[in-house]
């Protein structure tokens, strides 16, 4: 039983950034008054159900399919998935069952510097359902339930991976990269917490690589990347436990309970397993001529994998830096803009990754909301490079820039923060420090090299941190050893 292998496939639903629903003109805005964004079409009223296809949603889906390296279907067709449920107004969901928009793609993830391709089985476009609010725990035990149809008919894309994922960590990396790609092409905000990105996981384990797959369970209700990770991890443990005890994994849908950190078998919904899918007779097939697809392709920007490779090749960045900087298009753009003002790729990367991202995270801001313009950060880096200010001073200047958006030169000027590199000025201060600290000098002479650090600190203190630390070190050493 030791060589157990985890096999995971993901089904990811993503709400598209269209302003209107997939088959009617209702708004898709999040958080409106319940049932305020509805019409006869998305309510499934008799006589009102004829769909009018949202062209923008189709283009977004093609764009996503291309970004995930998929083949595009020659004809776009829609099918009906028939089942009864209170959040499904028409009694069927319009989806793409027979001929998904894109097939046979892949997404690259970076596993400790090694690139792994996760296959994309298919990507298709479909409509969302409404939302149920139960008076009790669930539909079976509640005295009544209420339905909000604002979400009914909102365009969703479903991305189905091949069972290529081998661990919870790979699943997390895949989702991060997928989100990053979809944000690059700007078709969704992919917020799992708001439900604009949802993920179900099919989890199974098998004795060894290449052996027959065990029965799989489908995990639902994971509302963050962290819960996807934890849910899969838990489920793998649980299944191995069952197998070790000689039991069998029951193929079923399981619910991830975030508060308890466990999965539980879900009560069956009244959903028939046979969806009786057939082509929607109200939606004639739509051709996808090559010129159209080509035009959509032109809109796709450089995507994270190739941008990250370019950052490594062109700027000599370590793979980790390149990965972090290309997570979002905004951040990668920001980085490259900074380089236009001060071409020191590694310094720019260090400052953005350690300092700027820390400030942004603490403030809960995205890079495009940052008050520090790339030009200003470039100037700051140049001042560090030219030894006008020390790195330590630069950190405080950066904080001030972040808060006020003020120009770094102006801040340094106003506060008199220019670094003291002038040797005569420094020698004077150093002599004073040595005079005032005879004990430390003696310690140093007796071989206690630590005393050096104390003396440097004293010099820095005297200069209000403005002394060039490298120079101070050199000069102190000269004086003490000489």
């Amino acid at each position: 039983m030791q060589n157990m292998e985890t096999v995971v496939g993901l089904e990811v639903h993503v709400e598209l950034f269209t302003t209107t629903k997939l088959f009617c003109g209702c708004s898709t805005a999040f958080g409106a008054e319940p049932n305020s964004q509805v019409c006869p079409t998305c309510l499934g009223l008799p006589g009102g159900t004829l769909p009018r296809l949202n062209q923008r949603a189709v283009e977004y889906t093609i764009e996503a399919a291309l970004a995930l390296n998929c083949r595009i279907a020659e004809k776009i067709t829609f099918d009906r998935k028939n089942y009864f449920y209170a959040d499904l107004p028409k009694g069927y969901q319009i989806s793409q069952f027979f001929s998904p928009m894109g097939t046979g793609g892949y997404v690259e993830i970076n596993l400790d510097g090694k690139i792994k391709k996760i296959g994309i089985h298919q990507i298709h476009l479909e409509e969302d359902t409404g939302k149920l609010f139960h008076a009790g725990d669930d539909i079976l035990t509640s005295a009544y339930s209420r339905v909000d149809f604002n979400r009914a008919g909102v365009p969703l894309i479903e991305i189905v991976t091949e069972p290529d994922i081998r661990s919870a960590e790979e699943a997390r990396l895949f989702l991060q990269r997928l989100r990053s790609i979809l944000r690059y092409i700007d078709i969704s905000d992919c917020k799992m917490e708001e439900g604009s990105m949802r993920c179900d996981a099919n989890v199974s384990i098998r004795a060894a690589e290449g052996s027959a797959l065990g029965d799989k369970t489908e995990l639902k209700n994971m509302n963050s990347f962290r819960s996807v990770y934890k849910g899969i991890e838990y489920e793998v443990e649980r299944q191995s436990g069952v197998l070790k005890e000689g039991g069998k994994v029951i193929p079923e849908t399981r619910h991830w309970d975030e508060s308890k950190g466990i999965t539980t078998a879900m009560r069956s919904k009244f959903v028939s397993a046979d969806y009786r899918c057939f082509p929607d007779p109200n939606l004639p097939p739509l051709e996808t001529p090559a010129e159209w697809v080509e035009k959509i392709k032109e809109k796709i920007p450089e995507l994270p994998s190739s941008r990250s490779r370019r950052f490594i090749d062109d700027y000599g960045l370590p793979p980790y830096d390149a990965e972090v900087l290309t997570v979002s298009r905004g951040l990668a753009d920001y980085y490259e803009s900074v380089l236009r003002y001060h071409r020191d790729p590694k310094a720019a990367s260090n400052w953005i990754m350690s300092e700027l991202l820390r400030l942004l995270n603490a403030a809960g801001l995205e890079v495009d909301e940052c008050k520090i313009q790339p030009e200003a950060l470039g100037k700051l880096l140049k001042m560090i490079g030219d030894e006008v200010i020390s790195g330590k001073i630069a950190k405080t200047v950066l904080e001030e820039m972040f808060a006020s958006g003020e120009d770094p030169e102006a801040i340094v000027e106003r506060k008199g923060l220019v670094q003291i590199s002038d040797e005569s000025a420094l020698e004077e201060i150093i002599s004073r420090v040595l005079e005032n600290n005879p004990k430390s000098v003696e310690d140093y002479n007796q071989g206690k090299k630590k005393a050096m650090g104390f003396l440097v600190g004293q010099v820095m203190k005297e200069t209000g941190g403005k002394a060039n630390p490298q120079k101070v070190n050199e000069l102190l050493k000269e004086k003490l050893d000489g």
Partner: protein
Amino acid sequence: MNLRDITAAELTAQVTNDSGLLKPVSESLYDLHEKGRDLNVFISFDKQHLEQETAALAARLARGERPSLAGIPAVLADNICTVFYPTTCASKMLAEYRPPFSARLVESLQQKGALITGKTNMEEFGLGCSGNSSHYGVAKNPWEAERTAGSGAAAAVSTSSALLAFATDTVGELRQSASFCGVLAIRPSYGRISRSGVIDYASSMEQVGVAARTTTDLALALEAAAGPDPRDPTSLKAEAPPYASLLESGEGKLKAAVPESWDRTSGLEDGVKDCFQSELEQIKAMGIEVDFVELKHFREAPLAAAVISAVEAFSNLANMDGVRFGCRGSAASLQEMYTVSRSEAFSSKLKKFIGFGALVSSEKYYRKHFLKSQRMRTRIKDELAACLEEYDLLLTPTTPFAAPLAGGSLDAFHLLDPANFYTAAPALAGLPALTFPVYTDDGLPAGLQLIGETGDETALLRASLRLEKGRSPLKFPEPGSM
């Protein structure tokens, strides 16, 4: 005002000239409605609404407007949505349903000055035309009240309660009932009249048609109703021809084909058979060439049509779940609510039909029945297209029998309703088809069906006018004579 011997064009001219005539028109309509109450033609008819419509029209005429259908009484089958009348589909399910919108067709007719007097009886949701599934009882035939009319729409035209009637024709309902009631009717090419606001039943075949008492009226009505509609994705993109002005009988050479298997149906009554044969002789005498042709797949049409319409109806009627509108049965759970609501509100015939639809679309039978029927449909389409390349028209009886007796076996569910023998093929192929009234030796009306090339309703209307001119005036039953 005598509405019996007036054409739509004459009535419009008179009313436009003297809007004072609208009052006697509206009074006659009311009288006719009262006299014909026993026939069960109408589901909704409201004197007050009629008065409002005539007052509004009088005001428009006074302002100098000259709408093309001014003052023409028209009725609508009760599956065409109207804000001013309930729209029941003759089902208990929708007995209280008042759509918050009117069909695109209704808007066009109102804009053109037609008086929409009432909503007519039909088989539940459009389920054939020779049963008794209507929640409001069988619509009786004005020729012999113990026989069925097939639809209230055709009966209303037959009794002059309306000069025009608009109703859907899925497998042949409108043409068959026009044949039973001795009036003309045309089912235009699929997509010619918008289905926006028409309650979806079997979307890929369903098409709104019109019944009238003369070819000229038919042309006028079709012109008013036809045309592209962005709200209906299956609507034909091309503008509809100006049928009325293109109408002329002409003496040109016409070649007509008759399927040589036309008499190979068990349901064929001798009266209808003799009548059709003598019609063919008359047609030849008019200088029209008639050939018998082999159409191998024509006889397969009723089965394919039954399977496809059942699957589509099963899905289209799934929105009738008691959640947002319609009958809601009292139940302890959601599942039970569906079962109770639908069991109580649907007729047994409809339940069997949609049950059949659910069966043949299930995974087990999808390929064997549904896909096979779709392939059959393609063969029928190709065969008819090839035939109509060589011939101007295809001629058949409209139904194998005159109006059936009401009651008795009407309750039974016949998947292969023999009434569909001639009408199913053009419905599957989306071709225009017209029925022209003829009479059996017993004095009962029957129909001669003319099938034309897709998009060419004009050819059918011209042939119909040629038939009309070449014979004595059509007969209509005396209103209130029963």
